[in-house]
């Protein structure tokens, strides 16, 4: 763990910006700042987004668990419940289909000159603000029911994480192979 480095606040802001620039550049190069590509994924006509995300998961997962094994990084799995996943996920999905960008790709789209991306960004800020209003009402009831409190799949199954990683890689590559075979 490079704890000293993590505590250098100003340098970390610079790292955040730099890594964001790389991420934004990659999103643009992958075509994911393009409305047609994102909505094409949701209409199941264009699987670019699935291909990008799957290869990011495969690469990221293997490297991160390797670094974790070497004691160089700590992972930060989130927490939540079926309630946050299903309800929050579906509300997000409604907006996803209408906007045709997700938060990161809306920001990226705006960077490439898409004005509708800017309106998406403004909407997301309003949505996050509306959530801040109802948060006190639901925090003690729905949101704190954290069934999956920082739990990973290998922890849940009680098996070695490399077994899960191999399984996830095999499944994702099989699905990708099928998608390529179908020409999507």
């Amino acid at each position, binding site marked *: 763990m490079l704890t000293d480095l993590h505590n250098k606040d100003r340098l970390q802001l610079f790292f955040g*910006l730099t890594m964001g*620039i790389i991420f934004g550049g990659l999103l643009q190069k992958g075509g994911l700042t393009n409305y047609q590509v994102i909505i094409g994924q949701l209409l199941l006509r264009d699987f670019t987004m699935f291909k990008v995300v799957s290869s990011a998961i495969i690469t990221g997962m293997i490297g991160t668990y390797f670094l974790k094994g070497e004691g160089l990084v700590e992972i930060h799995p989130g927490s939540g419940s079926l309630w946050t996943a299903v309800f929050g996920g579906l*509300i*997000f999905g*409604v907006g996803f289909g209408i906007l045709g960008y997700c938060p990161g790709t809306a920001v990226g789209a705006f960077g490439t000159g898409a*004005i*509708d991306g800017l309106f998406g*960004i403004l909407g997301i800020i309003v949505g996050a603000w509306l*959530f801040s209003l109802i948060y006190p009402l639901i925090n003690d009831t729905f949101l704190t029911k954290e069934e999956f409190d920082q739990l990973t799949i290998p922890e849940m199954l009680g098996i070695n994480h490399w077994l899960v990683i191999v399984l996830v890689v095999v499944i994702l590559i099989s699905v990708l192979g099928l998608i390529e075979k179908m020409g999507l």
Partner: protein
Amino acid sequence: MNTWSPYLVGTGIGILSWFTFLLSDKTIGVSTAFVRTAGMIERLFRGDKALEKPYYEEYPPIIDWGWMFVVGIAIGAFIAAKLSGNFKVISTPDFWSQQFGNSNLFRWISAGIGGIFIGFGARWAGGCTSGHGISGTLQLAVISWITFIFFFIGGVASAFIFYSF
């Protein structure tokens, strides 16, 4: 369009995630920055009283790593688009116009409404397509895999219904 292979881009994002863990002890995530921005705007209007809101106590309206990361996304996409000659001010994407007509106002209002659902839903779900969809899934977080599936169930249903009009 001058795009790269999606597999190359995805691999690049995966490698980037190694460095966010290693150098910054952070995960790639976007939607938290929107809460912080909402808080900053509210603070402009209500002053420090805004900071008493419980949600802002959890996510203070400050410029942090994640906020800079989101600013970086816009800059990085701009640079990449400029370098490949793809930068173009577009009010409404063609793919939208083919389905819903040329009204910019209609597209902008729809985009704003879609954004509201996204912002609300992402905070309810505790993350978005990057936080859960990439960072959470690659850490094999149970909650992220379930949430990610529901993002897509909702998104596919919503897009199909919307595009059937």
